[in-house]
């Protein structure tokens, strides 16, 4: 079902990264040497129990956090050597985020939440087009408080993709939604990946969702325990939980 050609060119990769959080004498090893690559136009699902290091990995990949050791490469740029301002520029130009709790600005309408990003992006699509892609044309002048959870999450996806990012990082995007709504959100993500070729990494607890991905990365205790290739991803509508 893929229309955009996937390649084995890595967009983002990590080399033996670790992340240690210190709180007084206690050191928590959130990541214990993770090497992974995200390739162009692929959909990757990260699966793992709570505390397995998925979110930490995603945050580091998205330039929200820095590894304690190891390297993170975006194409040939070393993110782990970047200062805060450079990481901000990286996020601004190349990354789209979708979170479990949407993180929409409550005082802006759906269209305005998307415009928030398009106003600072280099080559964005019009906010209306982004909202159209997630099926929210009819609701774009509503404030977040006037939208359902699924609608809010689709606004978040529209906001994330409107800048035409190289990578879309989604942390439990369906975590707060019922299965029917969750599926519409996944459909939005997959259609974006299909039409725009955006590399998409998706964290979930839900093992069923792995079936829509090209690759599935399993994590436990801060390490990658297994990587599965999926040669025939299914459509989100075929998934049920």
């Amino acid at each position: 079902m893929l229309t955009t050609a996937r390649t084995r060119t890595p967009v983002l990769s990590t080399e033996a990264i670790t992340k240690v959080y210190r709180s007084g004498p206690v050191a928590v090893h959130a990541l214990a040497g993770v090497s992974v690559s995200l390739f162009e136009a692929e959909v990757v699902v990260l699966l793992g129990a709570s505390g397995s290091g998925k979110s930490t990995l995603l945050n580091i990949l998205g330039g929200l956090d820095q590894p304690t050791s190891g390297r993170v490469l975006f194409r040939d740029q070393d993110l782990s050597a970047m200062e805060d301002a450079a990481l901000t520029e990286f996020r601004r130009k190349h990354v789209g985020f979708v979170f479990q709790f949407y993180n929409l600005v409550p005082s802006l309408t759906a269209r305005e939440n998307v415009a928030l990003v398009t106003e600072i992006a280099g080559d964005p699509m019009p906010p209306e087009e982004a909202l159209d892609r997630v099926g929210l044309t009819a609701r774009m002048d509503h404030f977040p408080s006037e939208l359902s959870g699924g609608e809010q999450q689709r606004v978040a996806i529209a906001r994330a993709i409107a800048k035409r990012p190289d990578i879309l990082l989604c942390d439990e995007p369906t975590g707060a939604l019922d299965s029917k709504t969750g599926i519409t959100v996944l459909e939005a993500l997959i259609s974006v990946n299909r039409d725009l070729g955006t590399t998409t990494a998706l964290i979930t607890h839900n093992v069923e969702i792995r079936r829509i991905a090209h690759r599935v990365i399993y994590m436990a205790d801060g390490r990658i325990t297994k990587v599965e290739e999926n040669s025939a991803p299914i459509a989100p509508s075929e998934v049920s939980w």
Partner: protein
Amino acid sequence: MRALDRKVLRDLRGIWAQCLAIALVLACGVMVMVLSTGTQRSLTETRDTFYERHRFADVFAGATRAPRGLLSEIAAIDGVAQVEARIVFTAMVDLEGMVEPASARVISLPALGGPALNLPLLRAGRLPDPLQPDEVALSEPFAQANGLRPGDRFRAVLNGRLRDLVVTGHLLSPEYIYTLGPAAMMPDDRHYGLIWMREPAAAAATDLDGAFNDLALSLSRGAHQAAVIAAIDRLLAPYGGTGAYGRDRQMSHVFIEGELSQLGAMARVLPPIFLIVSAFLVNMVLGRLIALERRQIGLLKAIGYPIRSIVIHYLKMTIGIGFAGTLIGWGMGWWLGHQMTALYTEYFRFPWLDYTPGAAPMVISGAAAMGAVVLGALRAVLAAVRLAPAVAMAPPAPPVYRRGWADALGHALGLRQTTMMIVRSLTRWPGRAAVTLFGVAGSVAVLIVSFVTFDIIDLVMEDIFDRTNRQHATVILHQPVKERAELDALSLPGVLHAEGVHVAPVRIRHGQASKLVSLTAQDPGADLTRLLDPDGTRIPLPDSGVALPESLADHLGLVPGETVQIELLAPPRQPWDVTVTSVFRQSMGQDILMRRDVFFALMNETPQVNMLHLAIDPAALPALQAQVKQTPAITGFTLWEDVRSSMEETMNESLITMTIIFSVLGMLITIGVVYNAARIQLAERAHELASLRVLGFRRAEVGYVLIAEQMLLTLIAVPVGWLLGYWFAVLMTQGFSTDIISLPMVISQATYAQAALTALATAFVSVLMVRRRLDRIDIVTALKQKE
């Protein structure tokens, strides 16, 4: 300590900076109250005690020459308690080592003992010996300014005769707490003083044996002052009576009253601003804290704490702020009160003047401060405790935004989304925006009141010294002389041009209102002294009728074209009905003006002059001053440059201090309001602002949302503050204006601009302090919290 009390302390510690900002605003209100009412009380009590102990008279009168035999008739007037007849005249003083001439008011002491009224207080030495006609006592400030100690000698021209006098002592008088020389605008202790001389010597010097020319009297309880004044005027009329007057026209008393009313105006206008702003701030900060602690309040209620305990718990926090503000305010007010009182002692010569505010300003200001913060808190607290525990424990409903006029405007203007966030925040929480707006506007207004003093003083100085009084010197003549005095003056060294005027005391009456003023009769071609209309444009002296200062015309309810009665308080004393032909601007004094020929035609006399305005060659000034000292016909010499510099010196000293104090007060309001508003905004929007960072917004762009909202409100507050400041300035000039000083209302563009820029800069620094906290927010942690 109870658990809830521990919570109070910890909560206060958590928001200490916000609490301090509120406490400081509150402290300003308390401070101004303690300062102004405390100083007012100290000044009033000191004055009243001095008046009472030294029997300050109630009514005063002057005459040309009245026989002592008249005194029994005066004493018999109903309501008169005591009568003191004196001889008072002006003398030129020639002090060793001083080039410029000085002058003094000579006041007679009874032949034996001390006077019954206006008892001078002996500060050093002794009173003059009745048997030694050359012995005199001097006013303490004059003696000190010129280094004259008891036993020292100096020379004075008494009624045209040069005399050697011996100083026996230094005195202070309740009649001359504030001493102003003729044609002076500020006390000048070096060049003008008081000389007390025994009556026989004074009578001999003035040829007033068996007569007096000045009267002071006290009234019995319940006496009708106006009736006594009328009776005295009747009795003194044949003897050149110049009109009796009460304390309300007594120069020294009027100046003290003016100062007291200024302090009163300060106490009335300023503290309410600070107290109201503090109340709103407490409401805003506590409202926010309570919103955050909603669940805890629900929990406390659920586990059985009664509403009363919870209300008391939050009120304790408020009282902590009120207590801190009150203590800081008391401390600052006490300290500044001492400074201000010390400043007063330079102008008001009391034998003692201590800052003793008493308990009342402390109690009242403390109670007002507590009342303001408790009222501010109650609304927020009561709203929270009314919620049922189950409702309170549930998260509050998310804010609901609606589209409105602001959206249409925003879209029409093509505003960016970060700006739309600001617009929506303002329209969603208008109350909070109003607190910031009102607070900053108050701050701008206080700043305008602080800076406007310079505009007013500049205008007054310019009017007095550059535009109306362009003479270099003014000479007061011992007696009126024919107009040729102008020609005689030209023969004095260095005199380039001379213009004579005749100044006479008159009573001006319109309907029921009347006033004692000076009438200046001058030449129509006079150029050294000029007239300005109320807008400041030069106008000619009217060909006929009389010109009145604006303040007097207002007081008497007169407009040009109306007729006013003018009664000369010297022979021939007859009243004339004169048309008011123009109204002019006058900041100091209330003199009415007429053409000299018109005035003397009314009197049916040959025109005369008793004062000369001179334009002089500066190089010849020492020679002129030396000549003046030896000219018996001159009893006063004022160099306008000296008047100007002494006035400027005084103004600079006190004005700069006051301006600094008020500017700090004004800035503290902005800090209190903007810092708190920005802190609340940051606390509420941390999640939202962190989201922006995740989306790739730079720190500066995220900071913009925080800073621009506060700066936008500050900007909107500026014109409101200008209006409020204008109104305050009007109140202030009215409060500060007396019969002697009529302050013009003028605010320069520079003042508006300075007030605005100061408020904007203060707001910017305040919000930057909060902006630093924004940089410290960990975006990953902030995002993990559910909205």
